[in-house]
């Protein structure tokens, strides 16, 4: 068997999770991915490959060709962002750093998304939401609330890798039920111990990870979820009036993030099934991702960034649900003045009352 596998050109096989090349590990007798650390039996990989469809339909070929012909790519020389839009409009400024952008050419078909969710929120609604959000924050710099800044809110299709994961969950723990009572001058503690075993196939659907390194992952995570029921096949018409970002992080790059979230979701499923114990001590808690199905899609985000004291503050609104998130910049000088004023006023009042000035 070993000889057979050593003779096999294992690089022909791609990791079902991150698409990197798999290599045969003679010690474990498994195919392992050096990139995402997944490992699979040879039989499993062969069965996955047998199911794979390699053919591309004529309609898909046509869509890729349209995408190549009707998209323009603009490049920001300042921050390196690549912005795409349809060939009917021109991007003048970078959505991220607000510097002018230059036309960089056309995009190849590999950047064509599979799916898209169109914008449901208008710019006016997005602006109002931002105004409401900022109203509760007294200590942002004045410039952050200005009309000029509000006009910088950009409708942006953010490239997302969306993954469905099949997870093999293996959990074993010691569960304890504790009962105490008092008799005479003694306190008794009865401990019942149980062996808790959970083995399950857990499926996660549609965990997204943005493929743009410039946009903060946490920010995009915060405006989730998107309603995938409204997913449509990508068409150039969705880009009209909006900009789109070209991904610069591929599947393999986002996989660790996806894996963490999928494993966390799986752990939550298992934890929810372990109930009735006063203490649980896990000895095995493994959540292996066996297979990942990917989709590349564009999701709608109203995006704004603000540069303050050499730091870029990002603000985003889910263009479909209206959920918003962001890090407001803090004008420390304003805050110090406010806190100093309050503290000084309290000190003066206390000083007059208890400092011997009114006595």
């Amino acid at each position, binding site marked *: 068997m070993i000889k057979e596998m050593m003779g096999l050109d294992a690089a022909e096989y791609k990791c079902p999770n991150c698409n990197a090349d798999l290599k045969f590990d003679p010690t474990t007798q498994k195919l392992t991915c050096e990139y995402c650390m997944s490992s699979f039996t040879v039989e499993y990989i062969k069965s996955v490959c047998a199911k794979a469809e390699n053919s591309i339909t004529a309609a898909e070929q046509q869509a890729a060709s349209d995408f190549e012909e009707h998209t323009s790519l603009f490049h920001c020389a300042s921050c390196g962002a690549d912005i795409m839009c349809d060939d009917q409009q021109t991007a003048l400024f970078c959505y991220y750093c607000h510097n002018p952008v230059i036309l960089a050419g056309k995009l190849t078909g590999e950047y064509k998304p599979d799916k898209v969710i169109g914008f449901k929120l208008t710019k006016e609604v997005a602006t109002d939401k931002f105004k409401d959000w900022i109203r509760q*924050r007294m*200590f942002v710099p004045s410039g952050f609330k200005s009309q000029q800044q509000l006009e910088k809110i950009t409708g942006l299709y953010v490239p997302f890798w969306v993954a469905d994961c099949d997870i093999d969950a293996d959990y074993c723990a*010691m*569960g304890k039920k504790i009962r105490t009572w*008092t008799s005479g*001058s*003694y*306190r*008794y*503690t*009865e*401990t*019942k*111990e*149980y*062996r808790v*075993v*959970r*083995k*399950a*196939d*857990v*499926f*996660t*659907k549609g*965990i997204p990870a943005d493929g743009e390194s410039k946009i*903060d992952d*946490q*920010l995009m*995570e*915060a405006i*989730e*979820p998107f309603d995938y029921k409204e997913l449509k096949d990508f068409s150039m018409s969705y880009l009209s009036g909006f900009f789109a970002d070209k991904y610069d992080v591929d599947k393999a790059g986002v996989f660790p993030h996806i894996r963490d*979230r*999928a494993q*966390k*979701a*799986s752990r*939550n*499923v298992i934890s929810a099934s372990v109930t009735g114990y006063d203490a649980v001590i896990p000895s095995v808690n493994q959540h292996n991702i066996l297979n990942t199905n990917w989709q590349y899609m564009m999701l709608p985000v109203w995006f704004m960034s603000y540069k303050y004291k050499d730091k870029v503050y990002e603000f985003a609104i889910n263009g479909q649900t209206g959920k918003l*998130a962001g*890090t*407001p910049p*803090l004008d420390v000088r304003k*805050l*110090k003045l*406010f*806190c*100093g004023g*309050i*503290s000084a006023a*309290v*000190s003066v009042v*206390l*000083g007059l009352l*208890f*400092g*011997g*000035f009114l*006595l």
Partner: protein
Amino acid sequence: MKKALTIILKYIIAIVALIFLAGLVVRIRPVKGNLRVPFDSRFNFSELYDTADLFDSTQEKELRKEIIACSEELEMNIIVYINDVYRSDEEVEDFTANYYDRCAGEEYTDGVIMYIDISSNAYDYLSCSGKAGIIYGGKIEDIFDYYAAKRPSSQYAPDPEKFCETVTHFCNAMRKFNDNYEQADFAYEKDEENGIYFFNYKGKFYVTDYSAPGSRRIRLECIFILGLVLYTILYLSIKKKYKFKDKTNPSIYVANGQTNFKEKSDTFIRVYTTKHKIESSSSGGGHRSGGGHSGGHVGGGRHF
């Protein structure tokens, strides 16, 4: 690390500045209400009261001379009271202060009374009034340490000769600690029971039922530090709201109804019981109470 050190340094500077500011603010308000009756010929009543008949007339005469000389030198009254009647410690404290004020005919006069107890209880007590409160009030323990060198123990029958030395030594103690007294504007002593403050502000002795500059400075320092704490709490709590904290729980992505449990078992392994003895706690204690005495005295005592 460097940032944390900078913040700590800033706070130290702020605290020092606030302490300095508290001192400045206190000086704005003039000191008022001086109850002190300064020592002069009208209020000169230094005396030796030998109620135990310990000394003969010659000894008494010599000691009286020494007490008056010391009194005039220190510009305060000195009363030495020799006692052989049993009194409890609390009774001694009240009796001493009241006896002094009875001799003076007035409260808050400058002076001290030394109660020397030759009974078996032997609780000697020094009570200070007027300017003596600020000069000796904070040094009572040191004075007794010095005084103890010539104070015979109560284990032996009282020897008049030795007690003559004790009284003389006490007068020397008064001189020594008066000479060592260093004026400080914010130093003060307080008669807690009557709320009377003793202090020397800008070279003038005060006895007052208004707060002393030193006590007001301490209160102001506390208020300012409280202000600094309030500033810090406000600053940090508001700053916290400017941090990014939203997160979406990935559990929302678990496909509903598709989780397939291949094994789901809870197998009982064992049971065991432990027992601990409950420690019974009992509390006890006592309390100390004392009767009231006339106001404006600070003092302390020691058993011999």
